[in-house]
């Protein structure tokens, strides 16, 4: 059941980044923090590169597809989750557009980015709740040893590229980026070494 542990671990990585962005927006809104646009952009790139392009395909291939082959329980939830996975490009584009307006100094730029991010965070909260409350229990109920072996191998083969705690490689470029995000985020959200510098 290593796949289960990896998926929960990756959800925590994602939640930590979303939490950090949410706190930074809050602090900016309260006048306590100046925006670091490069850091925001790097974090949004993370959201695109990690959950949308890496994490979701693993769920589709190694959890959802074999679950559908075992049972029709949860079909409705699975259909919704798969549809949401397929809408990744639009979701990120909306966020990037809002960030671009904010970065370019549009009068309503901050409010627009804040609203777009709230929508994104709310989406992920509901998305992960649906996975964890409805689908993962069904996976535990219906998966055979064979299914688990395939899922474990699949998840382990494409580890959390952004610092998930179960990864074993030390030179993953994504891991370095994750550490860089942690370092650059303002304290106490991160280590406070910002502003973020592009490579």
């Amino acid at each position, binding site marked *: 059941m290593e796949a289960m542990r990896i998926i929960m671990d990756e959800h925590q990585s994602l939640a930590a980044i979303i939490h950090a962005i949410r706190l930074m927006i809050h602090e900016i809104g309260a006048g306590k923090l100046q925006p670091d646009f490069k850091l925001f952009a790097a974090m949004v790139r993370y959201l695109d590169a990690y959950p949308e392009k890496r994490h979701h395909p693993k769920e589709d291939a190694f959890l959802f597809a074999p679950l559908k082959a075992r049972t029709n329980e949860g079909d409705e939830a699975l259909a919704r989750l798969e549809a949401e996975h397929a809408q990744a490009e639009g979701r990120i584009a909306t966020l990037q557009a809002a960030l671009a307006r904010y970065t370019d100094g549009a009068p309503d730029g901050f409010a627009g980015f804040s609203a777009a991010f709230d929508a994104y965070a709310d989406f992920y909260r509901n998305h992960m709740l649906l996975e964890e409350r409805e689908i993962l229990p069904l996976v535990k109920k219906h998966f055979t040893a064979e299914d688990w072996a395939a899922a474990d191998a699949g998840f382990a083969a494409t580890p959390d590229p952004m610092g998930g705690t179960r990864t074993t490689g030390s030179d993953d470029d994504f891991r370095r980026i994750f550490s860089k995000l*942690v370092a650059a985020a303002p304290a106490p*959200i991160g280590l406070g070494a910002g502003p973020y510098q592009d490579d």
Partner: protein
Amino acid sequence: MTNQAKNPVLQIDRLCVSYGKVEALTNASLTVGEGQIVTVIGPNGAGKTTMLSAIMGVLGSKGTVHFDGSIEAVPEVERLVARGMNLVPEKRELFGEMSVEDNLVLGAFQRYRMGHRDHPKTLDEIYDLFPRLKERRTQLAGTLSGGERQMLAVGRALMAKPKLLMLDEPSLGLAPLIVREIFRIVTELRRRGVSILLVEQNARAALQVADYAYVLETGQIAMHGPATQLADDPRVVEAYLGLGGKHQAMLST
């Protein structure tokens, strides 16, 4: 089921600690194998810190502590550090008026007294693990952020080149992003061969990195098993993980 680690680095057997008439730890037994991360989870006041303090010899105790092949009849801090045990306390206990680098070098004091002169190389290794500390090496420790202080506390303990590193609530008071980074470093330490005893209230994070886990409640080991199994145990889920999990709470605030 017990922790069937092939090469136990630490074994405690029926450890008891009392504060006056109050027994804070009762017959606690636990094993940490070589290269393992073993976690002790439990609520505030369960006796987790007491357990670490007793193992380290900071608190008097009854029972036995086997460390790295021999029994510590009466655990003493200085001897245990010299033998390769180290503790990162919950309060970090840094020297705020000293620089980051001086705090780190102090961590190698015991080895230096024993004639080892390898601390410059160890310092480089610590800076490799914590690049932020290198950037801040001339800063006073008292000026560091919470995450930096935790990294410094861990780095200082590593300067003693421990075989067993005990971490007391390393995520306490830190934002989720930093907690992720701290736990990533903990797994990196395991990869480098350090055995780790991790005491945590953040059960979800601890169970995800640990190989084996113990649940401590009101001074007694209430449950134990491989971390993957405990993470799936309904009693642990209900008491320590909760529906939706901690990261859902992060997203809601």
